[in-house]
């Protein structure tokens, strides 16, 4: 799109803003911080990639045998083994692991795939979408994890699981007791302080969990856009060829670096999911 628009020249700001606007149910840019609209693009890509993720895992699971595994089965098994080991080290209840370990595996593969959308050229899917809808201003964002609603949606899911396991493991009264007596002590004067600390802890865990992934992916996407902008501007200046070279060099470096980030962030999200749910199993 950058090159497309270079002739009539949208300002770089316009280009970025356009790229950072979701295709949502209201049909226009969401201006409020919180609104009741739904981002179709985020949902489409996250559901598609989620289905792809579990489909790939299912393919391996369907043919899983205890005989000599093929390469695909081996690679899935390595993933499963890795997640199972981590889960075993963090969550000591085998019964909880029956759900939490598969959850962690799903989260890891799913988030990795969603993050990997960042590696596609920033204009590729939006341009196809704009061509298909005959609307050169149609909005489309392709990285679901660069949408705060998506990442917070998942971290709230983890929060709900934490609450569930807190009640399940410690019982309602046990958990309530812990809410008021940990971390500072059982003295009645400390109850409000303890409770406030616990609430803050839950809030901050959930927020940081979602925001960390979102921030990394959002920033990564933004850098890709700036790099694309650099390439898109080469026709408009006399030193343009340098900008094109810069695009190639910077784009390559950033994309290679980003491979690390997308994997790392997926792994961190998975590990924090396990850690938070594991904490829900432990009494203070």
């Amino acid at each position, binding site marked *: 799109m950058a090159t497309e628009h270079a002739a009539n020249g949208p300002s770089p700001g316009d280009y970025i803003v356009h790229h950072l606007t979701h295709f*949502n149910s209201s049909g226009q840019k*969401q201006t*409020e*911080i*919180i*609104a*009741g*609209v*739904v*981002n179709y693009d*985020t*949902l489409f890509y*996250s*559901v598609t990639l*989620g*289905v792809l*993720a*579990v489909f790939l*895992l*299912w393919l*391996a*699971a*369907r043919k*899983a*045998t*205890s*005989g000599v*595994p093929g390469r695909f089965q081996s690679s*899935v*098994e390595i993933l*499963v*083994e890795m997640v*199972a080991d981590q889960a075993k080290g963090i969550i000591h209840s085998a019964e909880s692991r*029956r*759900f939490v*370990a*598969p*959850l962690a*595996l*799903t*989260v890891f593969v*799913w988030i990795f795939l969603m993050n990997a959308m960042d590696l596609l050229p920033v204009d590729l899917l939006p341009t196809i979408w704009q061509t298909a809808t005959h609307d050169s201003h149609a909005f489309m964002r392709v990285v*679901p994890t660069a*949408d*705060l*609603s*998506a990442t*917070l*949606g*998942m971290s*709230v*899911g983890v929060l*709900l699981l934490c609450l569930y396991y807190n009640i399940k493991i410690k019982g309602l009264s046990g958990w309530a007791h812990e809410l008021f007596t940990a971390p500072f002590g059982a003295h009645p004067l400390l109850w409000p302080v303890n409770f406030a600390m616990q609430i803050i802890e839950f809030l901050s865990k959930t927020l940081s969990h979602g925001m960390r992934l*979102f921030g990394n992916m*959002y920033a990564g996407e933004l850098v890709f856009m700036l790099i694309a902008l650099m390439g898109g501007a080469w026709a408009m200046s006399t030193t343009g060829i340098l900008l094109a070279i810069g695009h190639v060099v910077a784009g390559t470096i950033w994309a290679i670096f980003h491979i690390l980030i997308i994997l790392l962030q997926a792994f961190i999200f998975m590990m924090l999911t396990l850690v938070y749910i594991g904490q829900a199993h432990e009494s203070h």
Partner: protein
Amino acid sequence: MNLNATLYLQLLVFFILALFTMKFVWPPIVKALDERAKKIADGLAAADKAKSDLALAEKRVVEEMRKARESAGDVRASAERQSSQLVDEARAEAARIIAQAREAAQAEAGVAAQRAKEALCDQVAQLAVAGAEKILRREINTQVHAELLANLKQELQ
């Protein structure tokens, strides 16, 4: 950076995917992994057992070989003993037969000599009678002189 209802839907998708994985992905893979681990463990145990069995069998082979060699030696010794005994017996038998034969031959020879001697005595007696007849020119009455002749024959013997 704004929030909207996508959050709820994403939350829902999150749980649906996790449940799917829990139901259809995780159990078969973990089962296969556990089974393979067990297979490998069994295989290693079997290999160890086979190795120790082999060592035992080799030890037993050596033992059997030793025993076989010993009993072969015994058999050979007893065979030698038996054969030498047979030879000795045969030799003794042969000596006995020879001695018997010699005895028989000697007895026979003695009888023959006796008989020859008697014949010779008869002839000597007749020769002596014939010589005496010629000398005396007269016939000797054999009945009268029979006693005399018998005495002569007795003396010759």
